[in-house]
């Protein structure tokens, strides 16, 4: 018995040592993997999307090797702070609330929020008054959920862990409307699974809540990395790489004004 205990002790020590490994030289990029068309997993488990392509282009520009780490959205900022990865490229909006926790690069895209409803919905307007008493689905811990909770306080706001889940529930009719980035919603509506629904209209972003667009989040004080990212964003905007990626996903310039 004790020989066995010694063996198990050795095994557990080995597993622990493997888990508490030192970080490598690679730049580790955290993303969610459930937010098409920006970042999502394919059936064979690979990451794809606008964020992923942009991240790869930036890494190429910065001449560093990058690897992606997927992380639940709820815990993505704590995970960055805990150094599970070095940067978040996951369509994260640059907001004051988040700036208290992390630093951001300049934006790499900026698109407005919108509201989608089932095709047969009798809703006609996206104002808080029109949606009073209705159930609105939105992904939790996002600028959209903050906006919905602040401005649509007469509505029943339901928070979901990922975008995929509120989509399922809009389709099923558990919520009357959903709120998210217009590109996310229109991408979904263009697919078979989004055929149930339509975009009701876009919303005017509230700069206080929505911020100035999506940026790359890094730990506070890592100015060198931030500058490298900023230069790389600038460079791919200028050398046409950004446009190439942009056109793969959108028929307008996602960078915004």
């Amino acid at each position, binding site marked *: 018995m004790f020989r066995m205990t010694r063996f198990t002790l050795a095994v557990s020590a080995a597993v622990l040592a493997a888990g*508490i490994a030192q970080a490598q030289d690679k730049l580790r990029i955290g993303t969610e993997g459930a937010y098409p068309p920006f970042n999502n997993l394919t059936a064979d488990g690979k990451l794809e999307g606008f964020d992923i392509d942009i991240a790869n282009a930036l890494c190429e520009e910065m001449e560093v090797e990058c690897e992606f780490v997927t992380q639940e959205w709820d*815990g993505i900022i704590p995970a960055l702070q805990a150094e599970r990865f070095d940067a978040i490229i996951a369509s994260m909006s640059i907001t004051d609330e988040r700036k208290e926790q992390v630093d951001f690069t300049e934006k790499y895209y900026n698109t407005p929020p919108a509201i989608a409803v089932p095709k047969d919905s009798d809703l006609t307007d996206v104002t808080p008054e029109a949606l009073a008493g209705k159930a609105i689905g939105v992904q939790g811990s996002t600028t959209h959920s903050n906006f919905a909770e602040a401005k649509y306080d007469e509505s029943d706001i339901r928070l979901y862990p990922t975008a995929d889940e509120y989509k*399922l529930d809009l389709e099923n009719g558990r919520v009357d409307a959903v709120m998210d980035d217009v590109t996310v919603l229109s991408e979904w509506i263009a697919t078979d699974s989004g055929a149930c629904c339509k975009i009701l209209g876009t919303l005017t972003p509230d700069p206080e809540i929505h911020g100035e667009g999506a940026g790359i989040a890094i730990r506070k004080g890592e100015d060198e990395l931030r500058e490298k990212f900023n230069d790389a964003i600038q460079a791919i905007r200028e050398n046409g790489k950004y446009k190439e990626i942009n056109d793969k996903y959108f028929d307008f310039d996602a960078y915004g004004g």
Partner: protein
Amino acid sequence: MDVATLLSFGPRGWGDEIAWGVVVTVTLALATLPLGLLVGFFIALGKQSEEKSLRLAANIYTTIFRGLPELLTLFLVFYGAQIGIQQFVRLFSPGTTVEINAFVAGMIALGAVFSSFASEVLLSAFRAIPRGQYEGGYAIGLSHFQTMRLIILPQLVRIALPGLSNLWLILIKDTALVSVIGLSDIIRQTGVAARVTKEAFLFFGVACLLYLALAILSSVALGAIDRWAGKEGVGR
């Protein structure tokens, strides 16, 4: 797409992803078991110690990890311990990063829960062994350690086995919680498949069946171990 394609192992099917999820679930449970048993054993020793402070320390441990929801324990380890250890390591060597990944976090959290319940099972097993067994051991000149190893432990295993089997089945189910911190276990893999394909009933049904299969397999294996341990006892 039909069910066969959805569950196939090809690039369009989810069979291979889900199979990987099963591997992760089983590996996690198997890795947690020795950790939980070992810690649980020492906690049980502490609880039946004659030293009051040792008993108290052991009881505090079980009170905490039995009382907290497993999900919360997992979050505390995953986020809290990471930040804590990071700061601790920084004191000695600035610049190094230590990472507790989701797997290790799951192992520690589930191991803590498992060990606190296992200590109770082992404690009642200890109490079921008459004092005479120890005294007999000392009387024939065995040391404390030898008595433990040769006389007490074999009996302990036999008495505690049903209780520990039960805890193992609970452990397998509890591994489902690690999906929430992003480890690609059965639940997470089937969940991704369900969201992408919209076949939620199919995939979550598959998840339930896989857990059932693991439970049945475990019961068969534990039954065999139980018979083996029982037979050893009869031979005495």
